[in-house]
């Protein structure tokens, strides 16, 4: 399919340009932050000489242009440097953090889909029944609640009062003790899944509704297919196109958006690394996390687009994304 290939090339080219631009924007944005990375290294009582030493160490005494070129050169070698504060190399640290954030996100994602898919379809098909409406109402509630508040409430009920799960933290040796690591993620996963499924239900429902109102479904039924059969054979396939693009976006934004949940549950994930990095002006860590996430987001978007194109024949020879 040559069309697909030329599309692929164009997308890849855009991808590359986006990455470079993103890196530059990142650099500038970070340098706008008031404060100085050297501050994280000094404590009350430090004299001006010590503060200067700290600035030399992190390189914040260099002119901006030099800092920028150093950054771009090391980036080109795929070297993200080492944290100013902990002195640990950024890339392995990100790898370590991903062992928390990726399972957290994926489990939440799977759970959210498992909840949202059936409920969303039911809400669309049975919108005239009380339970169809109930689903819609509950999903309204779900998108209106701040995620940290859900986290706090879940901890209060399920960890503190019922003692079912740990309230926060991650086992020191991580996945070396899979049961403990899994337990630590239960409440955070549920927290994210609640918010995520609430918005997914609405997407699934509206996608299903569009299918239900479509001509081909009516045609299929007129040709003798039963309603469930028509829905499954034609409906799901068509409804899945917009839903897939949304899923891609949701997955990407959850990976990054776990910041708040990781804070509520004191999890050593990517989000908490980023948050701490911003607080401490630890540029290498912040740049590293944001750069890797940008890559991730771009590739996920890329694959979601590709998947859509493969599923929906109508899109194969068109370019551009699909409306959310």
């Amino acid at each position, binding site marked *: 399919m040559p069309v697909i290939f030329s599309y692929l090339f164009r997308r890849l080219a855009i991808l590359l340009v986006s990455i470079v631009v993103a890196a530059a924007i990142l650099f500038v944005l970070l340098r*706008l932050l008031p404060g100085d990375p050297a501050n994280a290294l000094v404590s009350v009582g430090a004299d001006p000489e010590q503060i200067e030493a700290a600035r030399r160490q992190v390189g914040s005494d260099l002119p901006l242009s030099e800092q920028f070129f150093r950054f771009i050169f090391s980036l080109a070698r795929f070297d993200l440097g080492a944290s100013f504060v902990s002195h640990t190399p950024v890339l392995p640290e990100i790898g370590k953090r991903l062992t928390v954030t990726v399972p957290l996100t994926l489990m939440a994602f799977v759970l959210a889909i498992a909840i949202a898919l059936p409920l969303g379809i039911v809400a669309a098909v049975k919108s005239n029944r009380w339970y169809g409406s109930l689903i819609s109402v509950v999903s309204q509630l779900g998108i209106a*609640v701040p995620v940290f508040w859900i986290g706090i409430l879940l901890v209060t009920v399920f960890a503190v009062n019922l003692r079912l799960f740990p309230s926060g933290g991650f086992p020191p040796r991580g996945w070396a003790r899979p049961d403990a690591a899994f337990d630590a993620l239960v409440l955070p996963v549920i927290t994210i899944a609640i918010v995520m499924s609430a918005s997914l239900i609405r997407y699934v429902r509206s996608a299903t509704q569009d299918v239900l109102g479509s001509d081909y479904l009516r045609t299929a039924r007129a040709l003798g297919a039963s309603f469930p059969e028509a829905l499954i054979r034609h409906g799901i396939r068509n409804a899945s196109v917009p839903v897939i693009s949304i899923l891609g976006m949701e997955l990407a*934004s959850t990976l990054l958006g776990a910041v708040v949940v990781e804070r509520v549950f004191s999890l050593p994930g990517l989000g908490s690394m980023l948050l701490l990095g911003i607080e401490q002006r630890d540029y290498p860590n912040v740049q590293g996390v944001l750069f890797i996430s940008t890559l991730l987001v771009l590739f996920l978007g890329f694959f979601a687009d590709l998947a859509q194109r493969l599923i929906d024949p109508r899109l194969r020879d068109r370019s551009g994304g699909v409306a959310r």
Partner: protein
Amino acid sequence: MSDTVTIIASTSGRKRRSLTFTIGAFLVGLHIIVGLMTLIWTPFDPGAMSGERLEAASLLHLAGTDRLGRDLFSLIMIGSRIALIVGTGAIVIGGLIGITIGLLAAFASKTLDDVLAAGLDILIAFPTLLLAMLIVASSDGSSLWTAIFAIGIANSAIVARLTRILAKRVLSMDYITASRISGTSWMGVVAIHILPNIWPTLLVNLALQFGLAVIAEASLSYLGLGAPPPNASWGRLLQEAQGTVYTAPLGAIAPGIALVSLVIGINLLADGLRDLADPTRRSRK
């Protein structure tokens, strides 16, 4: 994003829809009234230490008091005003920037459009909260307006993308080509054809952004980056009450309920607006 319980629209369905619209209007109206009222009156001076530390709810202090002995109910009422300012400010800023960029992309050359679209895709992939966090962090000293600007700018990408798609859809219509051939300037096209066609959908989307902005501000506050004291934003009240959740649970619940009620109200209203604005949906059987 959201949508309605449309489609197999029976009479009862339509009734339910008007019911959700009514509920939404009621909730939002309530918050507007309360928010306006706080300009002239609250049960207690919100800054005054009018009671003891962490009093339980009573007829005097309907939601109890906080650690400083301030009346929480008054603070939550002021929270309505602040939330409305946050939401409105964020969608005005996000809307202005977003619509401008979206229209620009829609009219731009293919390459520029592609670049803009890709850029928007990246921005959108980053959670609003994260962008807002970076923007707040990079501004000198936080204020309510820093938070509002940050959220507005962060949201503008979504508006821009939607505007671009909607505008392109309109632009691809035959009558636009006809109109342009007949000499209408592109400004004219925007004013005559595009805006009237896309504003209903945009409005619904902006209404939803309103709710998201309120939630985003609460999350920023939770992370210590939101509206600084003495702004009684609900997020800050929740954050301050978190440490006392066992001795004074109401403080960690009441502001949350206020927040959820406003956001639900806005979302229901948005759903209702969509039905009004989208006749094809309404009439579809």
